[in-house]
């Protein structure tokens, strides 16, 4: 699936619900599917700054694709990072850099998880793109 197809699927899944509580229940369920980070990487080096809850994100690059694993001590945050991983993991650095994450707006995440330090959504996106840029440079 292309990253756009994954995003479209997420948008469709969320569009089934009008009520915010239902959307959050879905987010909690999605968090349960998160590819969990190896505990040995749950250290400061892989901690994303700028979140009220702790988020660890570990990138693995096999020379072609980056796969991400992550975890958070807050369940909603785990759902958010799981969504980002669904869209961006297992893709080339170039693809990760150029992916426009339009699903964030479409499912209302941006308005409802304000882009402040409290949720760290933007920090997570920035960190994933930074890893991709770093591997992209290495790859040239």
């Amino acid at each position, binding site marked *: 699936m292309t990253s756009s197809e994954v995003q479209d699927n997420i948008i469709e899944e969320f569009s089934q619900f009008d009520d*915010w*509580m239902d959307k*959050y*229940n879905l987010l*909690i369920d999605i968090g349960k599917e998160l590819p969990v980070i190896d505990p040995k990487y749950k250290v400061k080096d892989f901690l994303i700054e700028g979140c*009220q*809850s*702790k988020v660890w994100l570990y990138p693995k690059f096999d020379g072609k694709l980056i796969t991400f694993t992550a975890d958070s*001590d*807050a*369940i*909603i*945050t785990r759902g958010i990072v799981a969504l980002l991983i669904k869209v961006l993991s297992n893709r080339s650095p170039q693809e990760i850099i150029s992916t426009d994450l339009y699903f964030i707006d479409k499912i209302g995440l941006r308005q409802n*998880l304000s882009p402040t330090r*409290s*949720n760290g959504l933007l920090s997570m996106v920035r960190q994933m793109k930074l890893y991709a840029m770093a591997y992209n440079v290495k790859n040239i």
Partner: protein
Amino acid sequence: MKDIAEIRADFPILNRKVYGKPLVYFDNGATTQKPQCVLDAVDEVYESYNGNIHRGVHFLSDMSSEAYEKAREKVRSFINADKREEIVFTSGTTGSINGIAFCFGEKYIKPGDEIILSQLEHHANIVPWQMMCERKGAVLRVIPINDNGEIILEEYYKLLSSKTRIVSVTQASNALGTILPVKEIIAAAHHINVPVLIDGAQGVQHGIVDVKTMESDFYVFSGHKIYGPNGIGILYGKEKWLSELPPFQGGGDMVDKVTFEKTTYNELPFKFEAGTMNYPAAIGLASALDYVSGIGRENIASREKELLSYATSRLSAIEGVNIYGTSEMKISTISFHIKDIHQYDTGMILDKMGIAVRTGTHCAQPVMDHYGIEGTVRASLCFYNTKEEIDTLAEGIEKVKSMFA
């Protein structure tokens, strides 16, 4: 006293809904909502008499200046200061503390001198002193707290010494709600001729503040936490101190004569008010103080006490809820944590139910360190809140528990 329906009708925002649910506003510790009279007072400045204060010779400037000075007088009488010269307008509590920490440091602090704070301080009453200590080679000493979230007075007495230059403590903890024994703190410091600054950001809105009987040397607070506009704060200082201290900002209006060789400063309180002050907010603050006096500060205190006691019993009856800050002496703030559920998750779900709380460390990380926790959920109530809203919070907590179990 007005009944609760009348009080709530004074605050337009309390009628709104969020996510389709009636707003339950329990984040008054962060900022309070504004009654219509405050909104009107600020509007009126801009609509009918806006002119820069203390400068123009024209009608509007005169009118604004007069309203601004009346606001100063209102603040003076509200906290029972001796003189209007002792009331300085600032941008807020943070601005007031930064100002005093800076100029007090410049005037009096030498390497090795000590500043005493408590572990309950908001970062705004830590960082400015820390910055000054770094500049001057001084040292911060911290009054520890017990597990109820109360400062340990005996430890404070031990910290006081000939090296102590100033004590700066909060009137009430923003994170836990604990009210500090400021009279005892001040008396002990005065015994060795050390001045005390009281951070009234979480105190002034919850009861009667009388700087004369309190005998604090400095008392600071923010307008927006006492139903006034944002961007205005108060620095009260005894005249003796304000006369001795140098200004902390330079600019227009605070000067007497300016040449490139030497500037002499204006008299009190203008010496500390450089540049154009936020006079519309000061005028709005005066209206807020009138409003609070109209409701009656004893009435506010007793109503909030009732709300605190109801909320405490409702929340502590919920299995898994742990309340941090269990002092007998508290403002109407409850900090809590639900077992095994991250405070961020709790806050997000409560938000979707229309309940506004704060989550995290509340700008008071040393308090969290004491308990070895990373944060709490804080419900900070005030007199316009209701028992029904507390019931909604209790239901919300049950919902959170069911979602994250």
